[in-house]
């Protein structure tokens, strides 16, 4: 079995995970619906958001140039990173050259993608995640399983255990007490850190500003207290202007958690101005490519419009059952099934686009109306063209093509299957198909076909004369 299927098996065997995922995705999903209902013209707003994002992507290069110019005008230093390793190198260089020893981080998927923490630790820096969920993920030495709720997969007892073991506090599983412990620990870190690291939810091209959203307040602390602030931003995270930002803010929180807006929405425009007593003294932005520009010219281009709300995760029947870790990389769920093969290559990740029934629930809920099923099909096509598929499958598909284009052959084969399955079935169900077909029945039963096909029944039906009344019925005009 492949690694992916191993991870899926592990997830499916965990009843706690299933309960947690079910509860969380149900709650987030229903809150999303309720809050979008309260937004007038929410469909038009989503269409407008899509228009803004795709329009910007059509000239991403030009927009990035303008963005850089405006960032510099605001006193922000701009760096370009071709890939994750480059981004991490730049971060380490900035930290070392500014004599930074201790970093506090607010949640950033981009830095998960580049495995930044690992490189910072190697370089001898202390890094502390400050988003409560990410802090616990860091203590537990694991990875987040949902892009909005990183520890959705952990029970409060296991969280209590992690905190008791790793930071030596008395064991408790009371969420409020646990949060208070984290507040005190992290407050001390915020006050003593000299480097603040964030991602960016949006970059506003016209204003040269970054936008950070959070509910806890850690993003504010990270951008207010340490003397150096470095933000890592994927190059696709731009919006043209502040009025487009208004649009995005309206749908981001609603799609993610059902809130009208997150508790804190910060517009970060540069280092502290003359006379201010807080804010960083030096600010940097690292613009991360890591495969995004390669996606831009191809059929997956619109995935770059994703605003990372997580709504597709909550709607996806596959995600709801297996959770984020099964996807094996930074981004889980429908979005991850496209981003991971898109950025990292289809060869190693071809199972992800397969793990979908193409039900389209993701497309329904996406605030930017991304056509995720189309892109999944595109990736499956790429997988067939580039990656190796088992010879048995190739032969099977070729054989099916031959049979299906010859009606007599198809009927004969179907008839044979019906007779054979009549012999294999127990009370109407086949529990195990033999040979190469065994994969179908590994996790499901196959209903035995009816003894006679519809065509046979139709041909054998008694012919009745047409009722006389029909001839006299008035024709419909």
């Amino acid at each position, binding site marked *: 079995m492949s690694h992916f299927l191993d991870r899926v098996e592990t997830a499916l065997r965990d009843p706690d995970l299933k309960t947690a995922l079910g509860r969380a995705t149900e709650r987030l999903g229903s809150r999303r619906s309720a809050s979008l209902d309260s937004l007038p013209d929410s469909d038009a707003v989503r269409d407008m958001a899509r228009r803004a994002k795709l329009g910007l992507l059509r000239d991403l290069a030009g927009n990035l140039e303008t963005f850089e110019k405006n960032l510099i005008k605001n006193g922000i230093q701009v760096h370009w990173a071709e890939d994750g390793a480059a981004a991490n190198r730049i971060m380490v260089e900035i930290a070392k050259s500014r004599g930074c020893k201790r970093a506090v981080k607010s949640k950033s998927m981009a830095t998960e993608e580049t495995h930044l923490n690992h490189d910072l630790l190697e370089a001898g820096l202390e890094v502390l995640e400050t988003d409560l969920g990410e802090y616990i993920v860091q203590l537990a030495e694991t990875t987040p399983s949902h892009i909005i709720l990183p520890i959705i997969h952990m029970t409060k007892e296991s969280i209590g255990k992690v905190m008791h073991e790793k930071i030596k506090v008395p064991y408790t599983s009371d969420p409020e007490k646990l949060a208070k412990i984290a507040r005190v620990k992290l407050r001390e870190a915020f006050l003593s850190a000299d480097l603040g690291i964030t991602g960016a939810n949006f970059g506003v091209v016209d204003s040269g500003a970054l936008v950070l959203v959070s509910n806890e*307040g850690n993003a504010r602390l990270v951008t207010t207290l340490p003397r150096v602030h470095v933000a890592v931003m994927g190059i696709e995270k731009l919006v043209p202007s*502040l009025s487009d930002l208004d649009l995005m803010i309206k749908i981001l929180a609603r799609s993610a958690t059902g809130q009208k807006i997150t508790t*804190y929405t910060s*517009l970060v425009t540069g280092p502290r101005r003359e006379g201010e007593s807080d804010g960083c003294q030096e600010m940097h932005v690292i613009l991360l490519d890591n495969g995004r520009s390669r996606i831009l010219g191809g059929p997956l281009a619109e995935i770059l419009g994703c605003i990372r709300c997580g709504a597709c995760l909550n709607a996806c029947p596959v995600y709801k059952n297996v959770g984020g870790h099964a996807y094996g990389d930074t981004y889980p769920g429908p979005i991850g099934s496209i981003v991971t093969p898109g950025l990292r290559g289809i060869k190693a990740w071809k199972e992800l686009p397969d793990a979908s029934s193409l039900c389209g629930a993701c497309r329904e809920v996406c605030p930017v109306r991304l056509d995720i099923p189309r892109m999944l099909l595109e990736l499956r096509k790429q997988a067939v063209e580039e990656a190796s598929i088992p010879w048995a499958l190739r032969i099977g598909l070729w054989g099916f093509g031959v049979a299906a284009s010859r009606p007599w052959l198809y009927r004969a084969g179907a008839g044979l299957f019906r007779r054979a399955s009549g012999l294999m079935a127990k009370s109407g169900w086949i529990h195990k198909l033999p040979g190469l077909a065994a994969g179908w029945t590994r996790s499901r039963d196959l209903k035995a076909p009816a003894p006679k096909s519809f065509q046979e029944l139709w041909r054998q039906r008694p012919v009745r004369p047409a009722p006389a009344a029909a001839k006299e019925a008035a024709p419909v005009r």
Partner: protein
Amino acid sequence: MRQAQIRAYLPESPQGLPARLAYPATVPAGRRARFLEELKLLGVEAFVEDDEAGVRRRVKGLIAGKSILSWDPEELPYGAGEALQGETVAFGRDARELQAQADIGLTGCEAALAETGSLAMVSGPGRPRTASLLPLTHIALIRQADLLQGMGEFFERYRQSPVLPYVVFITGPSRTADIELSLTLGVHGPGKLILILGP
């Protein structure tokens, strides 16, 4: 050629979409009613005072005997700086460690947004960000004239500034549901938000 490919996969939107979000006109009384409604949903305590003296009395009542981290008195509306006399107060110019000991943060705000029950806080000299961030309780004073309908209008005002300052929109107390979806307030930012709406 590459441009053609880019355009093929990033289609134009269908015609007929509005060019921008509509911002219907609103009246102050309507905005105030909506604002208070939203605050109730957020669990934010709000006081409406009819005159300056009322505002100052309310502030004094809330902060008396506590340690406070405040904006500079000249930055507070309604002469509320007066209420700080005789109290333990730290300001932006004081050491971080001192600021971090305050129980209550006292600020004004640049604007308030009725649609979402938000405060728009713009940083500047004498208006430290820490006042609305470090203490467990945050008290904010809002002038009726600064109560706008939504973010769109705020941005209209804001983008006129020659040098864009740091802005944060605050909507309710700091919260998390990371642990088994149970709501906890005051994780990093203030767990209690009290707004005083003046004349």
